[in-house]
């Protein structure tokens, strides 16, 4: 589905991501873990076109998408959430999700002028219904008309997922979907991630909560100092000496 080859990103003299190879299989939940500053978020920014790679190749569904702009990558079928939540704060929950549908709908200034002011168009109503269905999926149906700003942290993370799903991705990148959550909330997040996978969306996620990662992931890639140090099933990674060293210190 997604193939990353020799992906490198340097900021001046600092290499945040160094020659990373990664293959995400369709239908999988694939986790990227690593200590703080390991390059996980930079990797996400590269895959979603937010940053352009210094070197390497990105292939999505067999098509070379290296250096594509973020909006084109999204249109191609890759969506994401942000670690430091970036919702449209003054817009309501349902509006946030509807913005997510932007690249799957059409209509500019002329279409806006040519509509009936008192009756939404067929396409607009379809967008609203899809947005409502996604809010339902993430458990925010009751918060439909609440400004994103007024939602709790957990609700905001869920809304970000709904908004990302509205772009109709085949690959969804979740950047620390459980950050700042309690164990119960993490269980809910787990269930949601699996529900999304069951809808046929491949998931690539980063996370610090090992309980979540070990439970949901089919495959785990471990980064440290921008390099891939291990990869495999949760059991393999759990036993990997280099991973233990990276997390617990070299003597562990």
């Amino acid at each position, binding site marked *: 589905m997604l193939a990353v080859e020799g992906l490198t990103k340097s900021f001046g003299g600092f290499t945040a991501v160094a020659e990373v190879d990664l293959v995400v299989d369709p239908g999988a939940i694939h986790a990227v873990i690593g200590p703080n500053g390991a390059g996980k978020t930079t990797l996400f920014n590269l895959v979603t076109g937010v940053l352009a790679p210094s070197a390497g190749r990105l292939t999505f569904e067999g098509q070379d998408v290296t250096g594509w702009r973020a909006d084109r990558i*999204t249109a191609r079928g890759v969506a994401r959430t942000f670690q430091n939540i*970036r919702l449209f704060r*003054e817009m309501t929950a349902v*509006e946030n999700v*509807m913005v997510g549908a932007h*690249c799957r709908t059409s*209509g500019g200034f002329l279409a806006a002028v040519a509509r009936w002011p008192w009756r939404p168009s067929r396409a607009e109503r379809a967008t*609203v219904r899809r947005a409502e269905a996604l809010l339902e999926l993430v458990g925010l149906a009751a918060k439909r008309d609440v400004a994103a700003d007024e939602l709790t942290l957990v609700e905001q993370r869920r809304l970000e997922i709904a908004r990302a799903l509205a772009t109709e991705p085949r690959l969804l990148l979740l950047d620390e979907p459980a950050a700042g959550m309690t164990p119960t909330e993490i269980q809910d997040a787990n269930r949601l991630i699996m529900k999304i996978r069951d809808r046929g969306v491949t998931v690539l996620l980063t996370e610090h909560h090992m309980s979540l990662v070990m439970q949901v992931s089919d495959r785990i890639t471990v980064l440290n100092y921008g390099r891939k140090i291990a990869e495999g099933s949760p059991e393999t990674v759990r036993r990997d000496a280099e991973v233990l060293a990276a997390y617990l210190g070299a003597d562990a």
Partner: protein
Amino acid sequence: MIDPYTESVLIFLGINTVLALSLALPVSAGLLSLGQGGFMAIGAYASAALTTWYGAPFPLALAVGALLAALAGLAVGFPALRIKGVYLLILTMGFGEIVRIFFLNFEPTGAASGFGGIHQATTLTGVTVTVVVLLLFFAQIRGSRIGRALEALREDELAAEVMGIELTRLKLAAFGVGALIAGLGGALYAHYALFIDSAQFGFHRSAEIFIIVLLGGMGSFWGAVAGAAAVTLLPELLRVIQEWRMTFFGTLLVAMMIWRPWGLIGRPRPRLIPGTPDA
């Protein structure tokens, strides 16, 4: 019948509203401009030349003036929209000055001595119709797909792009349509002032338009209307205090920015998306 004084105040109120709306659109996408006076000048000179030299009908002159201003908007917008915030302000300000100096030196339109002999074509009815049409346009934008995209762009540019919104295209459209409206305002102005020269479209004009939007509130197009009303009517009402009126007006602005920085019209309440029971 309304007396000529009231009529002239109302016409200027309408023209100021048009100009404020020309800035409200780019502002709704988070783009600030101190160059609206330049677009206004293009609309004013182009339409005046058409009606005065070629006897073109006024509506045609309006349309051509507005379109030329829009073209200028696209030409400026293309390089300008890669930069943000205060840098964009400086760039648009530079554009405004270039336009002013161009008309100051352009012989065919009178250069420094100005362009006179324009016949009056702007009427109170015409201005009112223009304002109403523009307000309907803004009301239609709000809550449409493109309106949501503009709002998303203002709130978080990166998130908007990651949601699949083509930033450059959207910004260019907002800037271009804003310039078009400014050109329209300029054409209306020229056919009421009857004499135009480059000084009328200089930095102070751009700044005035900026102040109107700032005063009214950057959040909504009603803010632009309220701001235009305040900036047009207050100096008139304050004539009683004579030479102190501009000082008073300035003080009022400062007070506004301290106690009510969001403008006369507050932030728009999140509007509700109508439900779809007929699924």
